[in-house]
């Protein structure tokens, strides 16, 4: 498959180089809010939405920074844009759907410190994607993040019924499961070559 094609960019971000399981981005929500399937799905949706919007903004900002020749402002301006996007999304959701706003709760503002979103903005700049490619890359990354979150949430719901030694309970067990999940995602490495 052509590595420049939009289809490849999507599959690459979603499966081959999954943001959580191959790049280790967004581990905090991956460990923190993956206890229940329902919250995991909603968190994934919110993150995907913020990713797509901030990726579009990052594309514009990069063009602007190149124009005024100030690359050292990249990091600072990206993080400000992400923080304000999250604030905007929060206000928008509150106004349009109070029910969804209540369901997401504290997770919404916490998206600001999700490194998957800043990582996405930095990677798309490094790879030199144009506007459409960035958009496809962002949606692939978002869907990949949701997929990983939902998979681990499903596994953890089952693990609640398993009898585990005290020593293993909690983060250690989640990490072991995540390791096995990451191993199985390596099977996608051959896709598109």
């Amino acid at each position, binding site marked *: 498959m052509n590595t420049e094609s939009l289809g490849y960019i999507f599959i690459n971000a979603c499966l081959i180089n999954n943001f959580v*399981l*191959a*790049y*280790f*981005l*967004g*581990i*905090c929500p991956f*460990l923190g809010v993956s206890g229940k399937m329902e919250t995991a799905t909603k968190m994934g949706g919110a993150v995907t939405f913020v990713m797509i919007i901030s990726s579009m903004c990052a594309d514009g900002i990069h063009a602007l920074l190149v124009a005024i020749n100030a690359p*050292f402002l990249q*990091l*600072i301006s990206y*993080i*400000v844009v992400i*923080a304000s996007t999250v604030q905007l999304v929060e206000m928008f959701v509150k106004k349009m759907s109070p029910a969804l706003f209540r369901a997401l709760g504290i997770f919404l503002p916490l998206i*600001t*410190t*999700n*490194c998957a979103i*800043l*990582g996405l903005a*930095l*990677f798309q700049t*490094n790879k030199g994607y144009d506007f459409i490619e960035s958009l496809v890359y962002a949606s692939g990354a978002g869907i990949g993040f949701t997929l990983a979150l939902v998979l681990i949430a499903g596994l953890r719901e089952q693990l609640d019924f398993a009898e585990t030694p*005290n*020593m*293993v309970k909690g*983060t*250690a*067990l989640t*990490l*072991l499961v*995540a*390791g*096995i999940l*990451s*191993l199985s995602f*390596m099977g996608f490495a051959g896709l598109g070559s």
Partner: protein
Amino acid sequence: MEKENKDRTELGFFASLKEHPTTDEFVKGLWRENPVFVQVLGMCPVLAVSNTAENALAMGLATLFVLLMSNILVSSLRNFIPKQVRIASYILIIATFVTIIDYGIQAISVELHKSLGAFISLIVVNCLILSRAEAFASKNTVGKSILDALGMGLGFTFALFCLGLVREIFGNGSIFGVSVFSDNFQEWIIMILPAGGFFTLALWLLVFNYIKEKRTTA
């Protein structure tokens, strides 16, 4: 009184230090409130750049620098930053120092900068730094904040180094690039791959849980 005695035996050789509150700010980050093994904060860089001991050490020291500088600035400005915009201001302060260390590492060693990749920039969203700014530096004096940052930063570096050391020994058969096994050693490729990061961290957590459990039952 009983509880105090129990605490003391649990802490072992840090016991005498605990009686001085000032040194305690420094010591707590190293073991009792270790950011990685106990608080499980800042996991992304811990897993991502711990494939060799050298990378892990560089990442840990870069984080220590940013943590120290941002703690100093946040605590000295703590009476001037309005409450409503404090998180945004903290992130801006952190982003500034991350930009400095990013260019600094690039100037010192291009190779190291390449192998750490985007993860230097991603120190900005390391929850450890923001949480220390919010939970400690914004409420305490500059001196205490410096001790807190040093303790937490060294604790973070120590944890990263533990991971990097194990992954490099088994994944590469070397320590700091120096071969430790004979030539016919078969490398465990999985240890350098992402899955190895998850497994190694899980194993370290198991070791620490085991020690903790032994102490509480003893």
